């Protein structure tokens, strides 16, 4: 997968975690996904269609999701899994929304679909021609995984805006 497509998602996750949870998120591991994706905690998926297409999954360890809920909503005490799921959906929405804002401002036109809870324990895989990259971020509040499987839609040669110059 092109680094220029991944970088906006990485920057966005870092910024959203800092803003909402008040902590940093550092990349601890990067793997290419070869088999089916198995979520570790609470995960939400957002589909993207248009000149860039694919899907992104944000997966948070339960402890991190509960802490995020407490940080964002100011909730205290034991939080239900349902509330934590809503938090992960909303965080996913923010991370993907901010990333696609950057990509769109570089000239790509595409649509973001509302986030859905990714409930499968195993099953989703990058398409044959779209490999998925899984980034593990460590935060003081638990691990957060970003599974990115996006690609340029087939365009005529010479149509693509100059991404490399825009994404250092």
């Amino acid at each position, binding site marked *: 997968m092109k680094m220029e497509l991944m970088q906006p998602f990485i920057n966005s996750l870092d910024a959203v975690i800092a803003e909402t949870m008040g902590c940093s998120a550092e990349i601890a591991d990067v793997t290419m996904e070869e088999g089916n994706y198995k979520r570790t905690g609470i995960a939400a998926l957002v589909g993207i269609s248009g000149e860039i297409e694919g899907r992104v999954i944000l997966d948070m360890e339960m402890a991190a999701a509960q802490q995020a809920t407490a940080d964002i909503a100011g909730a205290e005490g034991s939080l239900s899994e349902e509330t934590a799921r809503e938090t992960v*959906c*909303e965080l996913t929405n*923010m991370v993907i929304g901010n990333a*696609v804002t950057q990509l*769109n401002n570089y000239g790509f036109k595409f649509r973001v679909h*509302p986030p859905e809870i990714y409930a499968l324990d195993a099953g989703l895989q990058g398409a044959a021609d779209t490999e998925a990259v899984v980034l593990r971020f460590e935060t003081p509040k638990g691990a957060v995984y970003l599974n990115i499987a996006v690609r340029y839609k087939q365009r005529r040669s010479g149509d693509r805006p100059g991404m490399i110059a825009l994404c250092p």
Partner: protein
Amino acid sequence: MEFKPLTCEDKPKVRFLVVDDSVFARKNLCKMVQAFGGEIAGEAGDGIAAIAEYANTLPDIVLMDITMPKMEGIEAVEHIVRDHPEARIVMVSSVGYQDNILSALQKGARHFVQKPVKPEALYEIIRYVLNDQVAPAPATAGEIQS
């Protein structure tokens, strides 16, 4: 952070309609609105429900998400402003690219806030929108031609 209660004309409380498909985001926005001294007139989870809820509650301010199922926020803005040109709608979305902002403003939204929302930024924008003069209704194509 403490906020001076928002005011609107001679009403004791500014009334809000909060539109977002995420229950969590709605709760969070409602909490902010209440911290600003506002009152929740209604909530909606998609554009179609927002249009109906606007007509039922006639709020002073609408906080409207963009990406929603059934009908997206920008289309809902177009419907609401067509029927209620005085509507004050602030878009609140994580998707903040120029085309989206421009399109929302062209349809009649008054402002745009990108998520994650900072309460102090939202407060200032709402204050600005409340004090802004109501824009005249846009001319229809027929009026322009004649």
